[in-house]
Each structure stands twice: as structure tokens, then as C-alpha cells.
């Protein structure tokens, strides 16, 4: 079983001038489970999208089953024998297992679906994979793990030789993971290859035969699983020098401003406790889906919680909605400015002033003069580059849009500023401007909470780093203790008790 089924060499892809992949490579053998790992933004998804034909590479060679392979659309990949199982379940809840498996390809005569054949084919397929699910069951009645198995069965039903799974275990219990893995082993024994994107190193060592590491869009190395250990893998994933300079100035760290005690929302995060002080930047690290954004959104009143206490300046406060949070001096720059930050069709001015209208205009009528003064001040202070404050905010670049959101919150003069991925998707120049600004705010005594998936950013900017994994705080590292390896070990939960 040593023959290569998929070979990618020298794959490069840029998005508006930024490299997502640079000279990446990947070699998958027939009948192997191949893990693909790397930090968020390492290029894993882009690489998979190239295999599926969602993106065309700018450069590079791809061969599948020994022939040059250039899929133009996902259908091409599917027909060639490549299926992908996405992180999100994409089944129709109201249809049966059998209908879902054969969707779009129902056995039919004269335009009428032959339901008997449909069921029997599905039953046969499920039996082959040793999946015990009734093909007549409605998908809506299945557990998440069972749904995932139906997805696998559907993928197989296309006669796939290569199945890509994007974090297939993220929603599964330990027992269900075991079931999934036994199905993956069945697949492997049938000669099907599996690419598994994962963040969970323990699972990786349990199931995979080989691993490829990507970092910053480039290929780092590939190893048979027997020749590598966790420690080595982590250092390969993060192994970069802190070359960028972060303009973090030492700020006077003062008394506690915000203290969170036992914040819990079932299924998302549990028993989260932490505190931030005046002048402090608290970095929040963790992998995607660890629950970082959910914790902060809940703290800000954007989502109800099942329990927990919030104290501001030592006093317990009730935060039921973002208005409460704002009144108590919190501000939050959300993760996705387009989705949850900006009203894109409205003007820059309106997007900056919206949260501050209550203050600038005590009566029902707008005090447009005062509003405009403040807006201009902020535009100047943050050097936001725009032609006219009245222009639609969607016409600005990512970095300037992010500054608009920041301007809005700085105008509220918050005690605690929560930043969720403050520099995602913006260019290097704007990035360092925003870093400098954050540092200045801390120096002026603001307490800053900064979620970031970029390790160098968290390490470079934070006074302390809180690491979240699986909805729980796994540890808080001081600036001195924090290294890429330490943070990554906590974030992947590979720190053994007592180690």
C-alpha cells in the first residue's frame, strides 16, 4: 500500500496580494489516514479548497491517481473520487437517512423515486461501513455523531477514494469519537485515503498514519506518525521566531477593574473565571472553536448565560444585554466586523457615532454638530483614511473599517476594552498601528482583553495570557512564562497532569 494517490507540489495561492499558500506540498498514499495540522491561518483550508476545485492555485502541480488533476469546481473533484465532510453537518433534517445519502441521485423509474431500492442501497452501504443506523430514520432524530456517519456514508456513496474530513471530532463525545475512528479504520482497510484536519494531537496520534505540518501557508514537513512525538509537532507548528516587533510599552498595572467568576453557558463554556486590571492587556489564546469569542460575547451581554458573576470595580453587576455592558463601561470590538460590527450600507460617521448618540444627543433630536466634531476627532486621532465621513463604510479597506469600529468604542471611554481578533484580515501597516494604539490605551489605564489566534500577537502584546480549550480556562501565563510552546500545549490540551 505504498502507492501515491494524491500529490501536490509547489502550490501557491494569493488572495489580493497576500499569500495564503506559498510553495505548499502534500503527498497522500492509498489507504492511509493523513493528518494535516497547523495553526489557524496556516493554509489548511485553502489547500483543501484547491483539492476540491473551489480555488484554483496560482502555481503548482497536482496529480490524482497518477494523472494531472485540475478541478474547476467541487463537482469535478467529486466525480474524480474526492469527497469532503465539512465541520458543519450539511444534511436535510426532515429527510430520511437513505434520502440524504442518495440525494440528487435517487434510483428512479419514469421520474418516480423507487423508495424500496433507495432504502436497500442505503442499508447495504451502511452495513459495509459497519454503521448501525436505520436508513428509514429521519436525520433530525439522529445524534451529531450519527449524522456525521451518514455524511461519511454519503461521501463513500460517490465511490470516493479520498475523503477529506475537517475537524470531524469537534462535536463528538469520547465514545462517539471511538465509533468514528473505527469507521475510519474500516475505510482505510478498504483502500480509501483520508485527509483529516485536526487540532487535537492526541486523536491525531491515535488514528493517523502520517502527518503534514503547514505554517504560514508553507509546507514545513511530513512524517510517518511513528517517527514523531507531540512535542516535536508543536514546535514544528509554531516554530517561528518573533521577528515582528510589537510596540508594547510597559504600562502601570493598577487595581482590578473587571472580575468574572464562574461564567457558564452549557455546551459552550464552563466555569470561566478571570480578572483584568487597569493598564493591563490580557491576551486570550486558544484554537478556533475553543469558546473564546463565546465567553466574551456572553460577558458583553450578547448571549445569555447559565451562571456566573461579573464584578466591575469590585461591585457585582448584572449584564443582560449589550446596553447593560456599555453602561458599566465595557466595550467590545467583535471578531467579524462585517457580520457583527458594522452597518455596512451606512456611513462612516453613523458607524462611529451610533453608540454615543445617547450621550451627544440627550433629547430625541440629534446634535449633529457635536456628533460630527467627535467623529472628526476620532478620524484624526486614529488616522482613519477616508474621503468623507459621510461615505459608506463598506467602501473602506479592512484596516480602516476596523479603526471605525475602534473609534466607536473609544468614544464611549470604556473601562474595559474587549478586542476579538483585532487585526484579522488587515494589512501589516494598519496592524502595527492598531497594536500601537492598544498599547497606548493600556498605558492610559484602560484594561484590555485581546483575543487573538496569532500567537506572535498574543505573546507580543499581552501582560498575561489566558489559554482556553474546550470552553474552559486551561491556564493563565505571565509574560515571562509564556512561550509559543507553552501556550500551544495548553491550547491543544496536551499538558498532562503534573507535567
Amino acid at each position: 500500500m505504498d502507492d501515491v494517490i494524491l500529490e501536490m507540489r509547489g502550490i501557491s495561492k494569493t488572495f489580493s496580494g497576500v499569500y495564503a499558500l506559498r510553495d505548499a506540498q502534500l503527498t497522500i498514499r492509498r489507504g492511509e489516514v493523513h493528518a494535516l495540522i497547523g495553526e489557524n491561518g496556516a493554509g489548511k483550508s485553502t489547500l483543501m479548497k484547491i483539492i476540491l476545485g473551489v480555488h484554483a492555485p496560482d502555481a503548482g502541480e497536482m496529480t490524482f491517481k497518477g494523472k494531472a488533476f485540475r478541478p474547476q469546481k467541487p463537482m469535478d473533484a467529486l466525480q474524480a473520487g474526492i469527497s469532503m465532510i465539512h465541520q458543519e453537518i450539511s444534511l436535510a433534517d426532515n429527510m430520511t437517512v437513505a434520502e440524504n445519502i442518495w440525494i440528487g441521485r435517487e434510483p428512479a423509474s419514469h421520474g418516480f423515486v423507487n423508495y424500496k431500492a433507495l432504502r436497500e442501497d442505503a442499508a447495504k452501504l451502511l452495513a459495509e461501513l459497519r454503521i448501525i443506523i436505520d436508513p428509514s430514520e429521519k436525520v433530525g432524530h439522529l445524534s451529531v455523531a450519527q449524522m456525521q456517519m451518514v455524511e461519511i456514508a454519503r461521501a463513500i456513496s460517490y465511490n470516493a477514494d479520498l475523503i477529506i474530513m475537517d475537524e470531524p471530532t469537534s462535536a463528538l463525545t469520547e465514545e462517539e469519537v471511538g465509533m468514528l475512528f473505527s469507521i475510519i479504520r474500516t475505510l482505510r482497510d478498504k483502500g480509501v485515503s483520508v485527509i483529516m484536519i485536526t487540532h487535537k494531537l492526541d486523536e491525531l496520534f491515535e488514528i493517523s498514519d502520517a502527518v503534514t505540518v503547514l505554517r504560514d501557508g508553507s509546507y514545513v514537513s511530513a512524517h510517518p506518525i511513528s517517527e514523531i512525538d507531540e512535542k516535536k509537532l508543536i514546535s514544528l507548528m509554531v516554530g517561528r521566531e518573533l521577528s515582528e516587533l510589537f510596540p508594547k510599552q510597559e504600562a502601570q498595572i493598577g487595581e482590578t477593574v473587571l472580575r468574572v467568576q464562574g461564567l457558564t453557558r452549557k455546551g459552550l463554556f464552563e466555569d470561566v473565571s478571570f480578572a483584568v486590571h487597569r493598564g493591563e492587556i490580557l491576551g486570550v489564546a486558544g484554537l478556533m472553536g475553543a469558546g473564546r469569542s463565546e465567553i466574551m460575547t456572553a460577558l458583553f451581554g450578547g448571549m445569555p448565560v447559565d451562571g456566573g458573576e461579573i464584578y466591575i470595580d469590585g461591585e457585582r453587576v448584572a449584564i443582560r444585554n449589550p446596553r447593560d455592558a456599555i453602561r458599566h463601561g465595557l466595550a467590545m470590538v467583535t471578531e467579524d466586523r462585517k457580520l457583527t460590527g458594522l452597518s455596512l450600507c451606512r456611513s462612516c460617521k453613523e458607524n462611529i457615532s451610533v453608540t454615543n448618540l445617547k450621550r451627544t444627543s440627550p433629547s430625541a433630536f440629534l446634535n449633529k454638530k457635536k456628533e460630527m466634531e467627535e467623529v472628526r476627532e476620532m478620524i484624526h486621532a486614529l488616522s482613519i483614511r477616508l474621503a468623507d465621513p459621510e461615505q459608506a463604510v463598506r467602501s473602506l479597506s479592512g484596516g480602516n473599517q476596523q479603526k471605525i469600529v475602534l473609534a466607536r468604542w473609544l468614544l464611549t471611554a470604556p473601562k474595559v476594552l474587549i478586542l476579538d481578533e483585532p487585526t484579522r484580515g488587515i494589512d501589516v501597516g494598519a496592524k502595527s498601528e492598531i497594536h500601537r494604539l492598544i498599547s497606548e490605551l493600556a498605558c492610559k489605564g484602560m484594561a484590555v482583553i485581546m483575543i487573538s489566534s496569532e500567537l506572535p500577537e498574543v505573546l507580543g502584546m499581552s501582560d498575561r495570557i489566558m489559554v482556553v480549550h474546550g470552553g474552559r480556562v486551561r491556564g493563565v501565563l505571565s509574560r515571562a512564562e509564556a512561550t509559543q510552546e507553552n501556550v500551544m500545549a495548553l491550547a491543544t490540551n496536551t499538558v498532562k497532569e503534573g507535567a
Partner: protein
Amino acid sequence: MEAAAKPKGNSRLKRFVGDNKILFIFIALFIVMSAVRPDAFFTYTNLTNLLKQIAVNAILAVGMTVVMTTGSFDLSVGSVVGVAGVVVALSAKAGVPGIAALLIGVLVGAAFGCVNGLAIAAFKIPSFIVTLAMMQAARGLSYMFCEGFPVTGFPKSYLFIGQGYFLGVPVPVYIMAAVAVLVAVLMRQTKFGRYVYFIGGNEEAAALSGINVFKTRVLSHTLCGLLAGVAGIVLTFRVGSAMPAAGEGFEMDAIAAAVIGGCSLSGGVSRISGTVLGALILGLISNGMNLLGVTTYPQMVIKGAIIFVAVLLDTRANKK
């Protein structure tokens, strides 16, 4: 920054024309009609009639614009016109003194809108569904209140509201103008208006920015219902009787006027002046076609085509 900061004179003019497309279309249509039928179109009687006829639709369209700006719809306005008209006529007939009867009508409209808004905001049900249900319910109530018969026989003095003239201009036109100006001020000069636009652009961002989305939604629907009440009053006293079936299909004309006037179907973009122009254009087209001898049925086809084009332009503008 400097380069982008100074739009050239040429592009400024372009922007002015682009921003006021609808006004130029209206002027063009007006000139064409005046040229084609100067005898029948450009006369005092015809023009005042035209304005009187569009008043009800314009009032409804202004209210519709407010909810559409938040990203909602109100399909029940036509039925609310009916029920508000019936209630006012019954009140007036029963001897409720002048202003009080009118106030009742306005409040009835506001109540329907408020219920719409509460249902949409509290249960997070699409406004389309909620107001479709209300459209049925309000129509049913309208028939129930008057037992299926038109209500007449109220004091003649009420007819001034629908049929009277002041300084040579029909009274409904004053009401329409007042509604348009007040709502335009509300939308442009108040915090409420800002919130309406912001929610329409991005509801989640609005909530996370500290806007009380629930309150704004309920208020905007209440306003839309209130204006449907006003429209119901104007219609009743223009016709001279309250018909339980009055206002059927008016919601579509209101949406059409708003969309022609540049109101985005997905919310966040609108202008009250545009909506009024939209109502004027719709009125001008039917008036024009009447004068040109186009019969009712082809008129409907042509109106349909115009609405389609307006929506198409809106969709294309959103894709950019």
C-alpha cells in the same frame, strides 16, 4: 487621502444626478405628459386630482418605508386602512365628537402596528408571516365591526378631510405633506431614525452597539400602523363611506412606491422624499395612461413591469 478627498466637479454632478435619479425620472415623465397632452394633463383640475389620488398611497408608503428600512415589511396596512376607516365612521356616526373620532382611528391603526411589531420582535418571526396573518385578521375585524355593510351617515363636516380644499389645494394633500415632512424629520434628525437605519444595515451589529432593537422595531411598526390609520381616515372621507373591503391590495402599491423611490428591500437604505416621488410616479403613470386611453388591464401589466425594473435595480445596487 488628498486624491480621494476632492471629487472632481464632473463627478460631483454625476453623484448629484445619481443620488436623485428618481427626481429626474419624475421630471422627465412630467414634461413628456405635459407635452403630449397639454390640454388634459397640465391643468389645475387634473393635477390637483392626481395629488389627491396619490395621497393615501403616499401616506402608506411613508410608513412602509420606515419598516422596510429596518428590514421588515408590513403587509397588513391595506386591511388596517379598512378597519380604521370602519371604526372612525362608526365612531363619528355614534356621535363621538370630531377630533376624538379621528384620534380613535389613528390609535386603532397604531394598535395593529404595535401588535405586529411586538410579535416580530418578541418571537423573531419574519415580518412577512406575522403581517400576512394580521392582514387576514384585520380584514376580518373590519367586516365584523360593520357587519359587512358600508358605514355611511356620519356628519357631513367630516367630508372636509377627504374632499375639502384649502387655498385651492385638496386637504388630503396637506395631510400627505405633513406626514412626509414629519417622518422625514424623524428619520433624519432623531436618534430613533438613526437606529432604524442602523438596524436595517446590520441588526446584530446594532444590538451589539447598544441599540435597543426590540424597542425600535416595535416603534417603527407602530408608526407604520398609525399611518395606515391616517390613510384609512383620508380614504373614508374622500369616498364618503367606510367600506369593509377598503384598502385591499394597498400594501403592494405602498411597497412599490417605496421601492421605486429607492428603498432597499433588504433594509438600511431609503429616503422619505424618494418614497413620495415613487408614489407620485405611480400616480403620474396611471393618470398619464388614462389620458392616453390605455385601459385598466394593460395599465396593471405596465405597472408590474415598472416595479420589476425598480426591484432589479435595487438588487443590482446591493450586489455592488
